[in-house]
């Protein structure tokens, strides 16, 4: 397939939402999800769709080096990856603009590096090709935060949810994207341009779909937009809505002639010369397709690929989503992790050492070289490599990254503990994020806090 793939992998500074998880040493693309960098989920997926020519766009020199090092070791001989550095804070459209000259294929697939999904990009690309679309966007159901969430985090999620919603208008075949309003505007009433409804006859308005940030673009159109709309920074918020908006504008040019004939003749026909056909149905069906197809000479089409509800689709763009994704990848969406789970529904690396009376519950991953003391209990959590965990430690619904030291009697619940953190005796964490290298003092209790070392803030 003549597709070029651009993976927008972000950098280290791009999202404040992910601090303190993202640091200089761990750019966003390398955040571990079930002990694998999040970027690997997107890359594996592309590989599975036989899309092997990739440009990975990373913001910032240092982050790019880290990503490059990881990609070249992990995907050597598997993918042809070119890691490209762009400056920070360009936004997704800005990053694309920066590499615009490298795009040569007819169609461009743009994937966000933080996407964890099992929807095959190949399917989106095929839909794009079939419809001859200018852009095809992957839309998926808004993921639900599972029941295992604690009260506070689900409360947080509720507050966030409406913001993430898109209002999407689709035609009756659910292929064409007619209207899109991005999340931030949703607090207001929704306005739909009447002309659009008049042209299509019927529009389905969905507010339960999420833009998964996976797009297939026709290269010429993408480059055109990037060139002419220099102010556009975001694909999701600006480029895509612009393309959707400008769909109907092509009418006055060449294609309009056919459209007129169709509607005009039908109007005359209905009262003029009679044909033994009911005009009810003649005019009706397929009108949009005809309209659009007849106009395709001048205009363009925006399509949507809607993932079925059973597909998993989630973007890692907030702390909450990080916890959700980790939970899901070791839980209900375990097929994504690429690991094979044991009969107890967990993975315990053979090199790890467990003390007596220590239990590892289902939906857990314990990576190589980690040691646990006696009477520990781990439930629905991920524990990274070479962690040293003392006795009487409880870890529930949490992510513990690599080289973490947890001393006796600690309780960790609903938290994320980054690399090289030290938890001294009897520390209690609930719904906290602990940045890399932080030391949690003995006996301290933290609830819903974000803990990070001072220097990493600089």
């Amino acid at each position, binding site marked *: 397939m003549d597709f070029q793939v651009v993976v927008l992998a972000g950098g280290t500074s791009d999202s404040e939402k992910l601090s303190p998880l993202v640091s200089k040493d761990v750019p966003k693309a390398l955040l571990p999800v079930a002990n694998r960098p999040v970027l690997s989920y997107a890359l594996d997926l592309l590989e599975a769709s036989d899309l092997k020519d990739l440009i990975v766009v990373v913001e910032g020199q240092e982050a790019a080096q880290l990503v490059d090092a990881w990609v070249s070791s992990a995907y050597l001989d598997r993918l042809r990856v070119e890691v490209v550095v762009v400056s920070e804070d360009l936004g997704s459209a800005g990053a694309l603009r920066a590499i615009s000259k490298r795009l040569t294929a007819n169609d461009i697939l743009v994937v966000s590096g933080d996407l964890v999904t099992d929807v095959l990009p190949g399917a989106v690309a095929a839909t794009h090709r079939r419809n001859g679309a200018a852009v095809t966007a992957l839309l998926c159901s808004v993921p639900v935060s599972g029941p295992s969430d604690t009260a506070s985090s689900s409360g947080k999620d509720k507050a966030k949810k*409406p913001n993430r919603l898109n*209002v999407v*208008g689709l035609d009756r075949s659910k292929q064409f994207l007619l209207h899109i309003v991005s999340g931030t505007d*949703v*607090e*207001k*009433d*929704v*306005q*739909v*341009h*009447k*002309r659009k*409804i*008049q*042209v*299509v*006859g*019927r*529009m*389905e*308005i*969905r*507010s*339960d779909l999420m833009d998964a940030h996976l797009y297939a673009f026709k290269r010429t159109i993408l480059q055109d937009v990037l060139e002419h709309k220099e*102010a556009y920074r975001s694909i999701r918020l600006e480029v895509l809505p612009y393309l959707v*908006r*400008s769909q*109907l*504008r092509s*009418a*006055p040019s060449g294609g*309009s002639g056919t*459209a*007129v004939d169709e*509607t*005009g003749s*039908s*109007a*005359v026909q*209905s*009262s*003029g*010369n*009679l044909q*033994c056909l*009911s*005009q*009810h*149905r003649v*005019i*009706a069906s397929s*009108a949009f397709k005809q309209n659009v197809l007849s106009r395709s000479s001048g205009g363009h089409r925006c399509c949507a690929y809607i993932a079925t509800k059973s597909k998993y689709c989630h973007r890692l763009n907030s702390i909450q989503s990080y916890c959700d994704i980790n939970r899901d990848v070791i839980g209900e969406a375990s097929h994504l992790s690429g690991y094979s789970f044991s009969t107890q529904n967990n993975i315990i690396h053979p090199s790890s050492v467990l003390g007596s009376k220590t239990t590892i519950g289902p939906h857990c991953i314990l990576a190589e070289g980690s040691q646990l003391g006696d009477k520990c209990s781990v439930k629905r959590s991920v524990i990274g490599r070479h962690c040293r965990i003392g006795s009487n430690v409880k870890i529930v619904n949490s992510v513990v990254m690599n080289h973490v030291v947890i001393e006796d009697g600690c309780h960790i619940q609903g938290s994320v503990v980054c690399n090289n953190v030290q938890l001294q005796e009897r520390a209690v964490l609930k719904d906290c994020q602990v940045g890399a290298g932080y030391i949690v003092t003995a006996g301290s209790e933290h609830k819903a806090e974000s803990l990070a070392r001072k220097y990493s803030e600089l």
Partner: protein
Amino acid sequence: MSHKKSRGRGGGGGAAASGDGHEDLARPPPLQAVLLADSFTLKFRPITLERPKVLLPLVHMPMIEYTLTWLESAGVEDAFVFCCAHSHQVKEYLEKAGWAGKSGPGSMAVTAVESHDAISAGDALRVIYDRGVIHGDFVLISGDTVSNMSLKDALQEHMDRKKKDPLAVMTMVIKHSKPSILTHQTRLGNDEIVMAIDPETKELLYYEDRADNSHLYITIDKDILNNNPTLQLHNDMEDCYIDICSPEVLSLFTDNFDYQHLRRHFVKGLLVDDIMGYKIYTHELRSGYAARIDNFRSYDTVSKDVIQRWTYPMVPDVISSRDCSESRLHRQGVYKASDVTLSPSAQIGANSVVGSVTSIGDHCKVLNSVIGEGCKIGKNVLINGSFIWDNVIIEDGCKVSNSLVCDGVHLRAGAIVEPGCVLSFKVEVGKNVVVPAHSKVSLLPQPSNEDSDEELEYADTNSGITDSPPFSSMRSNGDQSTVPLEEDESGTSETGTCGVVGYIWTSVDTGIVEEWRQSIAPIPKEKLEELLHAVSDDDGSEDESNNPTLPDKDDSSDSVVEDDDHISKFEKEVEETFQRALGGGVNRDNLILEINGLRLAYSLQHADCAGAVFYSVMKSALVAAQSTNDTLLKTTADALGKWKDLLRNYTKTVDEEMEILLKFEEMCQETTKEFSLLFPKILPYLYDTEVVSEDAILRWAEEKEHADESDKVFVKQSEGFIKWLKEAEEEDDEEEE
């Protein structure tokens, strides 16, 4: 008398129904129907002045016949016909056609309900409610509906829904029909509507009819969206105006006595105001026919559908009016009664109907038309796409295209009726007269605005029949005085009998724009092209309005202009207020209050007021003065003396005093140059009246020292005075020391 009778009957029916309920609880209450035999609009004027709309023949049968036949076949047991206008005619018809007084199993009992003061469907339903005859779910329909749909599914859906959710009070029948993009109307000539429907439950969430293009956007409330993650916006549906209602609907109309229109008030009311959480659902008609004859275009469309048998079994050869002879279907959709006298050389084209006892002369051509009973059509007549009712006489050589010709009309030889005309009962058209397109002609005069009938037209601006010039002058009496329609055409006539017997109605207000929309004639080509251009223009505007970056840029440049504008507007208002005060209308305290109010309204500074008030005072002096400088000085002094208190009110700080000086300067330079020579003389006076203090004057002079030469004119003029002030100040200082 008739009133009493209907009442008695209604009561009887009610009692029987309730009696049944007691005897056998398992049996559902009989299905009832309310048929509105009055559309409460004026769209079929002028014909409806003489005959109610439901009795107008649609392919040889009155419309109400179609509706009643369908109701009976759909299993309705009890129908209440609500009649208002021409109620005696409707009742007479029901008697004659054998509907009234029918009884026995399998047949529908029809009861007429009469009211003369109802002006809307809402009123009609309130009357029905008062009669207390409806006991269960009922079908609400208007008497001009043609349908062959099966009600069973819709009824079942309605019942099931009600069982689950008692708040589901109404099920609307809708059907697919895509309006033209250009004309924004459906085949039936109805305005397009926009509905939002939940695709799962079919609940109606939004309804907008009369979707004129003044609103570019459909606005959907965010709450609707929050409660329904998926909803479908339909522009491709037509409202059939067949509703299955729960009895609550009637009480809702009674509770909300301002509801008039079924859709615009009732449906919108339930959707927008969320009354008691009642919900409306839709039933999409997928097979079967349903259409309401709302206007002339739908009359045309539905007629043709009937001829083409889409409405089977409601087609001419299956059900025919009870008293006329049977008509038979021939090839190509031609229906002919058995006793038609047809010249061998006459040509009847496809999809035409010819009624009994009608004779058609040599070399006539009838295409796509309906010709009623007892018509006499001469030779060489061309009838195309028209509806000729009963007993019409058309003489030789006439041409009728796409028009409606009512009973008893007489077209004399050579008359031409252009597309879109409506010739009401017994109108006569003279020899060789051309009736221009879209004319409406009636023997009855057009009601003027004061006519009480106009009130019928609540919220309905579509058929704007408005005040018309006295038409009596245009009335032609037989053959003697004639109306020269189309002067040049009538000039060619050889005999004196040209003109039209009858009044030609005008529809001044909405004009031709609406005329072509809902007439029988097809939409003219030019109109379509015109609309096409409008559509492409639309496209451009859509893009602009959608572009969020544009308005931002405009805003910043606008604001400066607006600011200037703002102040000058304020000054103008202050001046006007001041003028009123001069006229003696306002006393001083109130004047200050008013000016302060204006200042707040325009959100300006106190100093701006000082300038504006000073300007007003000086202006008044200028008005009072004669042109010479001496009198101007005197009137200025008078005005300042009179209003010094007012001015002092605004000159509490040096800044405000400065403002007055600067304003004065500006006036002298720009607006009122008359003062420029008097500047040095007025300045001391301002000082004397303590409007301006010496501090302010000195500061003003100081500031001006570094200004351009042109700016210093007035400082220089009053140099002497300033010098004197300075010296006086020094003296003061010395004294203090």
